[in-house]
């Protein structure tokens, strides 16, 4: 049972993102949207935690939300995949269930 975890809160502001990482299981996918997109940046106080989670989970970010906050894709942690809205829909279809960490 693979699950898609959707996060929309900045990891620097709320514990929602951390809570998501603490509950996601190996093989799950994590999608960062809206303010959570800034969490894709490398070299932050959060990036090591996310990299650790990426050992056994796939991490995605909605490209439009990243660009809107002035973060260019070359500043991202290696291995995070950028998706558009169609990719977002695909992720929901590919996974058995979806949980939003609002």
């Amino acid at each position: 049972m693979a699950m898609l975890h959707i996060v929309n809160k900045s990891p620097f502001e709320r514990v929602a993102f951390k809570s998501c990482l603490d509950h996601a299981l190996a093989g799950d996918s994590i999608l960062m949207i809206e303010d959570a997109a800034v969490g894709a940046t490398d070299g932050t106080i959060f990036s090591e935690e996310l990299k650790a989670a990426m050992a056994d989970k796939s991490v995605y970010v909605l490209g439009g939300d990243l660009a809107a906050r002035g973060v260019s894709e070359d500043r991202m942690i290696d291995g995070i995949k950028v998706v558009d809205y169609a990719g977002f829909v695909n992720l929901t279809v590919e996974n058995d269930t979806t949980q939003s960490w609002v």
Partner: protein
Amino acid sequence: MATKKFMYVNRKAPYGTVYALEALEVVLIAAAFEQDISLAFIDDGVYQITKEQSTDGIGMKNFSATYKALGDYDINKIYVEKESLDDRGLTADDLMPLVWEDEDDDWAEKPSIKIVSREEMAAVLAAQDVHYSF
């Protein structure tokens, strides 16, 4: 009317919530009253003034250009907290160069942004008469 020191504290990233845009509009309106206005960008608020924001992918109005007009409104005290930048892997170079033109100095362009430490920010906040939090 005595001039008061007004501080607008911005702590949220833009677009995900409406706080950033609301703060900007309130600041522009407040500028009409010719008070002593300062802006602080702390925590995720620093994302409001990052360079090269593009909202093409999210279908929202890109209001980042409007921060560049603040100098025209005589708003030129913009404090950005260094620790907030550091925590997010950002530097002053990732921010838009916000400037104002000094009419008394042949319209010379001068920087509006001051990068301050958390300690200095605390002192700046403490020196204000009125705080608005967004």
